[in-house]
């Protein structure tokens, strides 16, 4: 009853209602500023039309056994390798080898003769060689990245050089036996 206004304003530890109000105001202001900045930051993420272009269809009919073709998907090269029986055998034989990023060949393909890979070296993003006849395929009959010397095997797994991971397998589905959708 005898408390003055000032006393009631002040907690035991010397903090006042004013401190609380200041803190609350600053916190709300900061949250508001963050909310205002977010649209700007998010505008730099892939736009709707960029995302809409994120799947392509490839006709596999003209690709002969042993042939490799490159298609462009999301601005990156995708390697489609119509593997020979010998290549499949070699890839499977290497399942037990010492691998930096262990993965069996079976887990990297949907149909053994079709190997589909994002053709981007997992080191710093160069395009490995080996798609065209005459290009070096590295020591494991797969791909060779000329930038910093990474060797990939017939399953696209990293075997030698600085790259930390296997060549990525993109999401894909076989629409028919000879029609592939990537993305």
């Amino acid at each position, binding site marked *: 009853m005898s408390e003055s206004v000032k006393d009631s304003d002040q907690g035991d530890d010397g903090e006042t209602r004013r401190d609380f109000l200041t803190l609350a105001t600053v916190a709300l202001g900061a949250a508001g500023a963050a909310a205002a900045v977010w649209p700007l930051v998010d505008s730099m993420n*892939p736009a709707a039309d960029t995302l809409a272009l994120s799947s392509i269809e490839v006709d596999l009919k003209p690709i002969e056994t042993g042939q490799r073709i490159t298609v462009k998907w*999301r601005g*990156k090269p995708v390697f489609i390798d119509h593997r020979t029986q010998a290549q499949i055998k070699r890839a499977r034989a290497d399942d037990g080898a010492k691998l930096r990023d262990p993965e069996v060949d079976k887990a990297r393909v949907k149909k053994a003769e079709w190997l589909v890979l994002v*053709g981007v070296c997992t080191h*710093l993003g160069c395009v490995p060689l080996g798609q065209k006849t005459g290009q070096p395929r590295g020591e494991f009959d797969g791909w060779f990245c000329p930038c910093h010397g990474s060797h990939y095997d017939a399953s696209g797994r990293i075997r030698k050089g600085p790259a930390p991971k296997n060549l990525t397998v993109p999401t894909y589905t076989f629409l028919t036996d000879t029609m592939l959708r990537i993305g």
Partner: protein
Amino acid sequence: MTSSSPRPPSSQGPIVRWIDERLPIFTFMEHELNDYPTPKNLNYWWNFGSLAGIVLVIMIATGIFLAMNYTAHVDMAFGSVERIMRDVNYGWLIRYVHMNGASMFFLVVYIHMFRGLYYGSYKGPRELLWWLGLIVLILMMATAFMGYVLPWGQMSFWGATVITNLFSAIPLVGDPIVTWLWGGFAVDNPTLQRFFSLHYLLPFVIVGVVVLHLVALHTHGSNNPLGIDRKSEKDSIPFHPYYTIKDMFGLGVFLIFFMGFVFFAPNFFGEPDNYIPANPLQTPAEIVPEWYLLPFYAILRSVPDIAIPGTSIVFMEAKLAGVIAMFGALLVPAALPWLDFSKVRSAQFRPIYKQLFWIFLADCILLGWVGAQKPEGMTLFLGRAATAYYFAHLLILMPLVAKFEKTRPLPESISDPVLKNEGGE
């Protein structure tokens, strides 16, 4: 800004006085140029600060005119640069000045920084001056990198791919960050457009930081070759006309050098591959950054997997360790004012540090050479050794030298050696 109180300009007409009363720009100029006391013993290494400022203005001026003819679109960028070179009146000149100006800017700034290292200009009370300079350097690197992407040649595209991929080394959030930087799933049109936007913005941010750099500089004034503070009026001369004329002379010499490249070897610093339009499906045989980034590129590539000794347990993959080392190489110098706590600034009076300075300079040049080679065999070993030395110099040798070095006696004042006729060379 501490030495004398502001006073109105010495030659003042009624118009000048009318303006100055309302907006004291004349008082300001008088104070910062005519009154501004400068050590009277500055040598030519002190020219490079103002040279850097002038190159910045040249870069902004040429850049504005290039932007009037440049098209930031993957289908048109390369062609628009070729149009500048062939069809736009004097376009070739403006572009070659801008292109070579980037190299000149880094050359001048690196000399400016090594001058600061030699004469201990980073020491108190100029620590923040040093920091602001480092911030300018980092902004310059970002600006130069993005500018190099704009012509959309092979080296533009693949340089952008490699450098943006560095961020994928960050654990967990690496890949989303890279996608965010690209605005897509690869370096593509959104990337080019945002790089153009930022390449136009960042130079003005640099101007802002340079203004702060100058405010910090004018607070305590320039350091000098002796590294001792000014003690009396006798130690100083006004900036204008003494150093304005000296800076102008230095500018003349520098412009002969600069224009020598522009007119006689305009592609000396460039890569021929960048005159091939960007092809996202084919990587050039070798990706080499511009010369001014080579030492940092060498550090990036030199760091191996960091494993627990005696085991094959990799504690940190080479890619992430390299990225950390590269950014560390830019950030560790910020701690230099405290790592090197010797009270003596100038290497003239620091016999051991003086030698370490030259070894450090040689180490940086070696790193630059290594950065241009393939990282194999001997070069890889040299790169690792030079990287280790770079950090050892800053983190280990500097504190040790500061603690144990026996420095030579300092002169009483700046004018003392001259009056006693000892300071002549």
